[in-house]
């Protein structure tokens, strides 16, 4: 159990890093080092990413190319193919919508603040995933079981009522917009990972509720 909780934290930390511009050697190496079972739902996405990273090009050039593509996809300038903000998918294409405000309120309720401050809207994919990592860590470190459940429940609520409402749309947009296997893989990997976690949390907490 402890292991699983730590794994969740790692997973979300990784996902956060993958969507934080710019990509670094550290995160690239992390992806390279990751292995999953061949029948894992995560395998396909991971494979695509790794295949891109395995290309025989200079390390610097590779990361440069990835960042260029990431800029085109998510950063701008101008209108980007896959805006990484919840408001865009939930509130008719606008940015900084109510979702951003509400997400911010939620983070604060957990006494959490993004290291980037509020410069980046609080509904950015990296920040939302980072918050899940934050909650995962909270669950890991919690000594009292109730506290642990509270954190897991919050993760589930956040996923179920918010993240999962827009993440598939975003991943879809990402996938369609890029031909780079790293990003198509990233889209698949992210969607599958979040789906798995959502499922896992649901089962866990239903069981928990049932038991108590």
């Amino acid at each position, binding site marked *: 159990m402890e292991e699983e909780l730590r794994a969740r934290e790692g997973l979300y930390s990784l996902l956060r890093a993958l969507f934080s511009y710019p990509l670094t050697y550290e995160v690239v190496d992390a992806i390279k080092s990751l292995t999953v079972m061949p029948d894992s739902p995560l395998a396909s996405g991971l494979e695509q990413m790794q295949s891109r990273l395995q290309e025989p090009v200079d390390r610097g050039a590779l990361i440069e190319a990835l960042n260029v593509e990431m800029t085109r996809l998510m950063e701008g300038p101008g209108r980007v193919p896959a805006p990484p903000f919840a408001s865009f998918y*939930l*509130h*008719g294409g*606008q940015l900084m*919508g*109510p*979702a951003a*405000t*509400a*997400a911010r*309120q*939620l983070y*604060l*309720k957990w006494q959490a603040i993004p290291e980037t401050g509020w410069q980046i809207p609080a509904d950015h994919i990296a920040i939302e995933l980072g918050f899940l990592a934050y909650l995962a860590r909270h669950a890991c470190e919690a000594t009292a079981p109730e506290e642990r459940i509270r954190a897991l429940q919050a993760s589930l*609520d*956040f996923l179920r*009522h*918010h993240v*999962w*409402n827009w993440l*598939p749309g975003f991943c879809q947009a990402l996938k369609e917009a890029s031909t780079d296997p790293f990003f198509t893989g990233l889209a698949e990997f992210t969607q599958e990972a979040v*789906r798995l976690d959502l*499922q896992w949390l649901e089962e866990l907490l239903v069981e928990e509720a049932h038991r108590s």
Partner: protein
Amino acid sequence: MAQETQTRIRALATRRAFLTRFASGIFASLIVPAVASGVLDQVEAAPQEGAGPAPMPELPEGMNGQHPIERMLQDLQRALQKPVDQRRWAMVIDLRKCVGCYACTVACIAENKLPPGIAYRPVITETRGTYPNVSRRFIPRPCMQCENPPCVPVCPVRATWKRPDGIVVINYDQCIGCRYCITACPYAARSFDSGYFYSDFEGGLPQPYESLPSPEYGENRVRRKDTSPVGNVRKCHFCLHRIERGQLPACVLSCMGRATYFGDLNDPQSLVSELASRPNAFRLKEELGTEPKVFYLV
């Protein structure tokens, strides 16, 4: 799983629509404090600012359609369903009810974050007679939003114009600050923002409430020295940013005597249409042919 997701999203969409019915408008932000506890359920319910008509705000129970605010909000909803060029916003001010309290003047200043020296809606006091036979009227003076606005054609740079719904607006980024339009307005309803701040009179440091963005024209400008709207001409715009969200102008809401009414003149069922057609309605300086859309009842 994918299908399940789809269903869930659909269900949420319905739920969203359901929730939005209860949210928004003037009283919309009410739910925001609740966000902290209920969190993201409300995310979906929060209004989309500036994105078309918002649903009816939450009002006290049992109003039975008799509260003028309720009626005007309904009028507003109906008008917002129509294309913008079929709306004709108008204001009716019942001078028999104006008690001379200046709430509208100050509410407008607070809403639009107006600096010292600018009041879009001053209230004129008119006293007649000699003791003991005296009478006094209070005449609030918003912008008349004339049908034939004399201020518009004189603008050399097309920075001001009449919208299809009849509201005369100013593009702050276009206005060069020549003030020709001020001289052209027979109602003195346009003001020049000379660049004063409350802090000029209050301790020298910017006052918190003047550092907030002004909601005018939905632009959320923070007023700073040397940037628009400083150096521009400014005027009442019937709180355009509010009406587009289904909210009533600040002056209408605050009015202590409930003397100010607002709505769509093109809608024969609206309260303002009803009131403006009364025989006791008049408009200021009718002889100029400006066709104001602010009516006064006496």
